[in-house]
């Protein structure tokens, strides 16, 4: 009798941890063409930079252009760094805006949100799982830029020991580890924005709106951060430490900016996570 078997389900087996749902969330995220299109676009950044520098320079350092750009010709390992610097203000927040803005609103728009909830996924659990998916995307997006940059740099330019900002020299492996640390730093930097996106996503059933609003907030925060008149506000902007990763390229590593950044992002996660919970836990799902 189904009546019995339905009632006799074991309580507290593996699924109740939400691990299956996390895996399912990751699978759905990375089975979307859109996700791969964004990852491809991010990979294109270091490739473009490396190819353009290779074609136009022919070994003569010009002394112009953004930071690190000249160094690329001397050492291919700088491609990753340059690409990250280019990607952080615009491209990364844009892709994170798409993923984080889509979390709840996307499911609402498809109508699948109601089926997830009556499964029942549990509203808090669904929020956590959705956030975990967005956070994983932050890591994948950042790693895409770093790793693609390292590969294309090694292919097009000489590779050798790197002189750090402090004047010390590290080997290729040591530098690559630093790059991974850098990727971690940037990932952490994007977690606050992801939380904001998650919250905005609970407000609407139109994913594009949530995506645009999230990406726009990243732009606004950076503009505010560039205005000296608003100096008092800067420490509170989630974008404040976005480009502050230079400390990771010194010997010994200065961890202060990493810690300050992590604390700030945690604050944003706490605030917007709470707001998202407050909104979503009582929301009528009518889509």
């Amino acid at each position: 009798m189904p009546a019995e078997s339905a009632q006799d389900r074991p309580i507290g087996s593996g699924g109740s941890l939400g691990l299956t749902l996390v895996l399912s969330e990751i699978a759905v995220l990375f089975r979307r063409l859109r996700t791969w299109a964004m990852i491809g676009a991010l990979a294109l950044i270091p490739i473009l930079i490396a190819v353009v520098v290779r074609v136009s320079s022919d070994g003569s350092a010009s002394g112009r252009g953004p930071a690190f750009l000249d160094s690329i010709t001397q050492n291919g390992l700088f491609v990753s760094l340059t690409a990250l610097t280019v990607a952080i203000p615009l491209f990364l927040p844009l892709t994170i805006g798409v993923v984080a803005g889509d979390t709840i609103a996307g499911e609402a728009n498809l109508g699948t949100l109601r089926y997830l909830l009556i499964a029942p996924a549990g509203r808090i659990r669904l929020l956590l799982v959705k956030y975990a998916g967005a956070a994983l995307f932050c890591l994948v997006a950042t790693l895409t830029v770093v790793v693609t940059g390292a590969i294309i740099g090694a292919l097009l330019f000489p590779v050798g020991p790197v002189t750090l900002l402090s004047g010390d020299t590290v080997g290729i492996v040591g530098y690559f580890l630093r790059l991974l640390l850098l990727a971690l730093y940037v990932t952490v930097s994007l977690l606050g924005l992801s939380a904001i996106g998650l919250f905005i996503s609970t407000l609407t059933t139109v994913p594009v709106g949530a995506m645009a609003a999230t990406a726009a907030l990243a732009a606004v925060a950076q503009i505010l951060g560039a205005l000296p008149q608003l100096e008092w506000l800067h420490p509170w902007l989630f974008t404040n430490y976005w480009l502050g990763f230079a400390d990771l390229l010194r010997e010994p590593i200065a961890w202060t900016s990493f810690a300050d950044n992590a604390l700030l992002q945690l604050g944003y996660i706490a605030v917007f996570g709470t707001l998202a919970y407050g909104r979503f836990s009582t929301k009528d799902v009518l889509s």
Partner: protein
Amino acid sequence: MSSDGLAIETRGLTKVFGSQKAVNGIDLAVPRGSVFGFLGPNGSGKTTTIRMLLGLASASSGEIRLLDGVMPRDARGVLPRVGALVEGPAIYPFLSGRANLPRLDAADRPPPPPPRSTRVDAALERVGLGHAATKRAAAYSLGMKQRLGIANALLAPRDLLILDEPTNGLDPQGTREVRGLIRSLSEDGTTVFVSSHLLAEVEQMCSRIAVMSAGRLVAQGTLDELRSEGTARVRVTTPDIDDASRVLARLGLPPQVHGRDDTITAELVVEGLLPETVNAALVQDGVRVRGFEVSGASLEDRFVALTGEGFDVAG
């Protein structure tokens, strides 16, 4: 509330949208094991009620008992035992039909014992989607999506199925299949609560029904109970239609002539007027009565009377 024999019980369930009462103080009582039809024109509040039953929307007021729990408080314990289709199916268009099901099953906790892939395949077979399982769900027709939605509701053994207009978008063959499916599920002991705006459909599947009209529950009971609440009707077969019509009118019964030109019917609307009296009056006036039949009200009439409109008219 005591609800030992009830799978669904609501008291004064109300949902207000702005100034509109989409659901207005309804008291549902769905016995366990029944196939229960939730009937009402479009916009009468069926889906809104179902959303509240499942904890998707909060009730403005009123109480809900679902199986052994109070909703939404006991959602976590109750909902795994409930399969549902609400306001049509929803799919991830970029996944195959088959890949859609584990996604929602993954959200179910705790998962039932048989391996997921076994249950997914069984559910797909049961709704007749086995052959199209690997197709991208975006390429599904409405009827196929509807089947996928029903398969999702059947992923685990359920005590209660709540199906909101399950035959929407299905062809006559699919409609028959869904009816058969509901019957077989019911025979397994599952309580089925099925909403529809089509009387004929509910009449074929359900033993009990509730009728919604503009947010209110206007009738509830077995089909027979509802039939007997209506006014009886006499049906006279005679070559003298005009005479018969005159006699019936004189007795205060508005005559209705139908397609065939030798029958005339009238509702027995006059209190205390017995059918035999009507027959005697007809014969006395020289009407050649060849057939005389008394029947209960048709459900159709009953529903038009209850809801003030035909059943496929938008409300």
